[in-house]
């Protein structure tokens, strides 16, 4: 597959790995921000091929994992209402709420549907004028432009039966939160390539400088990931701390201006609760007041729903890179992909699910 297969070339990957082996002289802790990168690392066994001096720590870049429990409960409450068609990206269907997941709402008569694109949800609203179509708008900055477009389109088309349940999170506040934590061990970051394709990476040089931490915009294929690691390690070894781009074919410094413009028009920043971590100030996006008509929380009056996490689940510590999945008492015992206690096990890009699926039961 063009522009995918080439980045899985074993020989090229080995070449870069060898270079990393040659470059590294001491232990380093590097965090990959994006869940898609975690998925790739574990699926291809990249971390096993890196020198043992490099510890890869998995960051909170899994939008499904960090969606707060009460938001899932709100989604379930809405999906259970009559006449509602509740639409969502696939992975959200299995995230456990306080009592059940969205999938089970289907089994008790709710109309819950997977959509690939938010515009498919808008189309459903057009085709079903007598139903209420709700779209679960989750994601990081990569998914914000598509989600924003669904609201913009619904307005342009004059739809009064479309609303969104919003749970957007932003990367830079999360990086600040991680670096600002007294327990932080992370010394370098692989930044999320597609988040940067949208937002650019102009926010990172100040962070790199302030915290003396190299940040490298990195893609998702094995070759991209090892290249990102190489760039980070080179900087760490030479005492440099800058923001670099190792995903030049998709990300630019400025990012995607039209996408940023629509995000700006539809959303405003707000405090956002990250499941397992807690509230990170100004780390989320919500609908601007002028789009309140499209806010599902208001339309369905679910604002008051509260929720409590399972005491066994340490997803928060894993998302901050402080623990690994196999450090958790419940991992692979009470908590499995079939019966997940927390979102890092449910979502296939969650660290726990990735570890479970790809067989990481013992400490490496």
């Amino acid at each position, binding site marked *: 597959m063009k522009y995918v297969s080439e980045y899985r070339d074993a020989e090229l990957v080995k070449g870069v790995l060898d270079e990393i082996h040659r470059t590294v002289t001491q232990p380093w802790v590097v965090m990959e921000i994006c869940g898609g990168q975690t998925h790739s690392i574990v699926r291809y*066994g990249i971390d096993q091929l890196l020198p043992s001096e490099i510890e890869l720590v998995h960051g909170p870049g899994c939008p499904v994992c960090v969606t707060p429990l009460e938001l899932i409960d709100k989604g379930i409450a809405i999906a259970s209402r009559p006449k509602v068609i509740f639409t969502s990206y696939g992975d959200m269907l299995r995230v456990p709420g306080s009592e059940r997941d969205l999938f089970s709402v289907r089994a008790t008569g709710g109309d819950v549907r997977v959509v690939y694109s938010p515009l498919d949800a808008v189309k459903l609203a057009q085709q079903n004028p007598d139903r209420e179509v709700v779209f679960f708008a989750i994601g990081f900055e990569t998914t914000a432009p598509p989600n924003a477009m669904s609201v913009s389109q619904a307005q342009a088309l004059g739809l009064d039966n479309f609303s969104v349940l919003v749970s957007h999170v932003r990367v830079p506040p999360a990086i600040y939160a991680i670096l600002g934590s007294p327990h932080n061990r992370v010394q370098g970051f692989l930044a999320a390539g597609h988040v940067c394709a949208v937002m650019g990476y102009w926010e990172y040089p100040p962070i790199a400088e302030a915290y003396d931490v190299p940040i490298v915009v990195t893609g998702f294929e094995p070759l991209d990931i090892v290249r990102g690691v190489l760039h980070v390690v080179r900087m760490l070894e030479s005492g440099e701390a800058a923001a670099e781009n190792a995903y030049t074919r998709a990300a630019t410094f400025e990012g995607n201006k039209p996408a940023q413009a629509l995000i700006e028009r539809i959303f405003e920043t707000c405090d956002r609760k990250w499941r397992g971590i807690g509230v990170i100030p100004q780390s989320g996006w919500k609908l601007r007041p002028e789009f309140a008509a499209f806010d599902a929380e208001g339309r369905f009056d679910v604002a008051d729903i509260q929720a409590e996490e399972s005491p066994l689940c340490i997803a928060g510590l894993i998302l901050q890179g402080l623990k690994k999945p196999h450090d958790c008492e419940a991992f692979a015992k009470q908590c499995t992909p079939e019966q997940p206690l927390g979102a890092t096990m449910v979502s296939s890009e969650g660290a726990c699910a990735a570890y479970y699926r790809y067989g990481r039961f013992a400490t490496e």
Partner: protein
Amino acid sequence: MSEKNNQVTIHGLVCPRPLTHDDIVVLGHGSGGKMTQDLIIRTFYPPLENPALMRGDDAAVVELPQSGLLAISTDAHIVAPLFFPGGDIGRLAVAGTVNDLAVMGAQPLWLTASFILEEGLPIFILEKVLESMKATAHEAGVDVIAGDTKVAERGKADGIFITTSGIGVIPAGREVGGAKAEPGDAVLLSGPVGEHGIAVLAARGELEFEADVISDVAPLNGLIETMFRACPSIHVLRDPTRGGVATTLNEIARQSEVSIKIDEKTIPTTLPVMAACEMLGFDPFYVANEGKVVAIVPAEYTDAVLKTMRAHPLGKQAVRIGEVTAEPAGRVLMKTAIGGTRVVDVLAGEMLPRIC
């Protein structure tokens, strides 16, 4: 039309002309009376025609061509949409049951098929499905010797549900089973993975993509017979359906208490299946097949069996994808495309498109 009442005479009184109901299925077709008989004679018998079936008794009576062990299997078939590129529920039903028998080393002989039809189903759809079953049965060399039809109220059966049973005879000397894999054996796969799953997903239209993919649904007994001629002592055969090759290999590893090691680079995929999986975040190794076979054979037979498979239309891209070892028992491991290792686990639930 009253939901509770399925008497034909009421229909005749209500409608402006006497309806013979030969265009759609109605509840009366399942009542066991004349309408059912007519449906059977006019719609079911012609495509499926064979002496045992046509006798019309409550049970078919057949004689085994040889004595020996019988293989018997049963399967229920639900698929949406009913027709998809490469096949339909009828072909799926026949091929699926034939394959269940064939992977036990049996020569499939007879099938039974019972149909639950949804009230309102156009009869021409039923006819198409039956024609397809006829063609597939012919391909496999089997007869459908017994059947049944019931009609469910509108909304209570997705068009058609088909349940099949199959009977086959296992020639003496063949002992194939999921527990028979041995360390040192070679793991072979008959062709590219994931075609059925992606073809059906595209045809369902919910994710709104078009794919140049045709379901691989096909009866495999012909291919499998040629494989036995090359290697009478095949250890394991299985057709990887839902859950993909990954799930099938896990089942075998567990049953045989061995480890199976796969080389990712050898797994055949067609470009459109790969592209669809990339777009949705699926792993082709977990996507359903309906016309592929996994064979575990003593290592020394690898070349002979592969050569035979490749000479058959359904095995042209047959390839060795791995081997059986002793440890870690019950686990399937994969050497990834870049030389790393990962464990291939079973699928937790339905595969869902991911955004990350």
